[in-house]
């Protein structure tokens, strides 16, 4: 029998109300002030939520500094309230869940419904692709901090700008490190190379660039190990490497998988002579704390680490604000690029003295921007939108700290080579 009373349930009303809201998705009333709305698209949930939430915090940090007066922060535009005669940024956040279809839909919603002036995102290269395409069609500037796929800036887009370096640049740097080690270390004799990477857009791109760079540098790739991110164990992956025993290992492994990889290497008592990692699990600021001494002696490229404070004195004050948003976690090389992107964008708007996206985009291309949060201190864009002044330093974790070892000009420590065996630590 049907219970008629149960037909109209409060929850049904909730559903109806939600649907009714459809036409009027609330956008905060902003008419009274001079504001520039920026939409953010990051993977706030899903497998890479960790990175996405940090990137979001980085954008918020930059906006907080730009909108308010922080005379003690030595970053352009920080010392006055707003920019372009009092304009302020307002952020509208969106969650891509790390999925390309969701990210594209959110980009469209931000542009058409929320009426944002520009976009920033999207961490996953696979999401940045379609999302920036939407922005390009709508003639909206798309600032990209941390997506690493080289293909993004090979599309000749007019409104796309990336501040981070690509896998291509890092791969060449890694090969330089190997050559340098061969030259300077006694009995280094590095000839063979192993690759371990997650089988995703990020990992695959990194591996392809690594193979190209290795071939150019005369190193032989003897083992190529892609793995499924979120695997229950990495036993066969590490066992495969152990049996091939390459001299050097290039890794593109994120977060928890990186921790599992290190633990498994320890379990199997195997290490290459040198292990270099792309901007990934290695440079996650919590990894040294989480893995403790096990994290030591691995190397990788680093665009920023709190231990670089002497080279980048302006960051410390900015980072204080960032830490309040992340529960004390400092910047990493990826998230800091999102702040850089916002600071550069604000400078460009200020300089262009205009809110016309085309003018701002032209201004972005035409100038070299001061960026105290970048390792090189400067940002300038090549056609296609790649930051041609991006720089990263090769570091090695020693005693839980990122020590700079290469290139020589910026080094502060000697490399520990080869990696200390597990049983001798």
């Amino acid at each position, binding site marked *: 029998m049907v219970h008629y009373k149960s037909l109209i349930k409060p929850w049904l009303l909730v559903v109806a109300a939600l649907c009714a809201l459809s036409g009027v998705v609330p956008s905060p009333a902003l008419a009274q002030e001079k504001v520039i709305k920026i939409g953010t698209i990051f993977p706030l*949930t*899903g*497998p890479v*939520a*960790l990175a*996405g*939430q940090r990137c979001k915090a980085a954008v918020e940090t930059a906006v907080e500094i730009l909108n308010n007066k922080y005379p003690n922060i030595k970053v352009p535009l920080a010392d006055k309230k707003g920019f372009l005669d009092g304009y302020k940024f307002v952020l509208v956040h969106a969650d891509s869940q790390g999925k390309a279809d969701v990210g594209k839909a959110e980009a469209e919603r931000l542009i058409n419904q929320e009426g944002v002036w520009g976009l920033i995102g999207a961490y996953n290269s696979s999401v940045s692709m379609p999302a920036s395409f939407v922005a390009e069609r709508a003639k909206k500037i798309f600032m990209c901090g941390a997506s690493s796929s080289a293909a993004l800036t090979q599309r000749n887009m007019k409104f796309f700008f990336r501040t981070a370096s690509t896998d291509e640049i890092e791969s060449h740097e890694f090969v330089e490190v190997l050559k340098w080690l061969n030259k300077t270390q006694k009995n280094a004799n590095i000839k063979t190379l192993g690759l371990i990477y997650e*089988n995703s857009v990020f990992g695959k791109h990194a591996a392809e660039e690594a193979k190209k760079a290795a071939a150019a540098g005369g190193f032989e790739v003897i083992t190529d*190990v*892609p*793995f*499924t991110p*979120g*695997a*229950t*164990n990495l*036993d*066969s*992956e590490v*066992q*495969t490497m152990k*049996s091939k025993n390459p001299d050097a290992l290039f890794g593109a492994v994120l*977060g*928890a998988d990186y*921790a*599992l990889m290190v*633990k498994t290497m*320890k*379990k*199997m*008592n195997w290490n290459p002579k040198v292990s270099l990692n792309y901007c990934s699990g290695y440079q996650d600021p*919590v990894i040294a704390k*989480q*893995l*403790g001494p*096990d994290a030591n002696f691995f190397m990788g490229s680093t665009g920023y680490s709190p231990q670089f404070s002497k080279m980048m004195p302006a960051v410390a004050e900015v980072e204080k604000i960032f830490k309040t948003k992340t*529960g004390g*976690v400092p910047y990493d090389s990826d998230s800091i690029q999102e702040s850089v992107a916002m600071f550069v964008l604000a400078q460009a708007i200020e300089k262009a003295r205009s809110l016309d996206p085309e003018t701002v985009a032209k201004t972005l291309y035409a100038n070299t921007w001061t960026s105290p949060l970048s390792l090189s201190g400067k940002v300038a864009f090549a056609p296609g939108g790649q930051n041609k002044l991006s720089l990263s330093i090769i570091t090695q974790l020693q005693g839980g700290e990122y020590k700079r070892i290469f290139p020589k000009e910026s080094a502060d420590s000697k490399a520990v080579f080869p990696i200390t065996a597990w049983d001798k630590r």
Partner: protein
Amino acid sequence: METLLQVLLDGMLNGMLYALVAVGLCLIWGVMDVINFAHGEYLMIAMYVSYWLGFLLKVDPLISLIAGGIFIFILGAMTYWLIIRYTIGKPPLSALLATFGLAMLLKNLCLNQFSPNFRILSGTWLGDKTFQLGFLIVPVPQLVTAIVALVIVGLIYGMTKSTRFGWAVQATALDKEAAELMGINTERIYFLIFGIGGATVGIAGGLMPTYLAVHPEVGTMFSLIAFVCVAMGGFGSIPGALVAALLIGIVEALSGFYIAPVFKYVAVFGLYLALVFLRPKGIFGW
């Protein structure tokens, strides 16, 4: 040869872990015919319980596995009482739909409360300890997990085969109405089975922070493998699930090493297909 043995050992140890994760699912599925999509999330929550006990109160996972078991017992029983109860006797797969919603809820609740950070418990009693057995490297945490798994699977099997409660469970699984006519309180059986099924995966989760990082997505792959374990062993067959889990662990390790690591899960799922084509009701099914 040495490598082969090492690979086999690692595979078997992983297989035992899968067995511990799968046995609860097997119990619930076999008795109630309910696909619990939130099984991996139970595992994840138990890992958080164990992690926080270890991090805040310095309790070792070897002890907090009990807390994990109790916590997930309660969670499982609550799941039955608040959700599954209303889906029994309704169109097939409504329970699946509800537990899918539950999985989404639990995963994102943890993401919301604990942030997506991955966390590792350091300085545990067993953490990273290994010993040499001839040329074999035996990891202690995994070995202990395997032993716990054997004990738990044995206990559950013993319970269903030789206790009054177990007979009642079997009767309920075979024919719910007939069991009710015999005076068995099937509602209570279901309630307890969901709790016990949860408790076993809770114990697994309680142990795991010793060697695996905790984060909101950690349960996903384990639950997929557990589904395959249960089906491969034959629904409701606990020894079947154990054998299947061991087989899966070994095949995963062998194919990962001798073919290519990317194919290790392909081989596991392929193994299931090959097996059910030969034996349509699983290894121990009838």
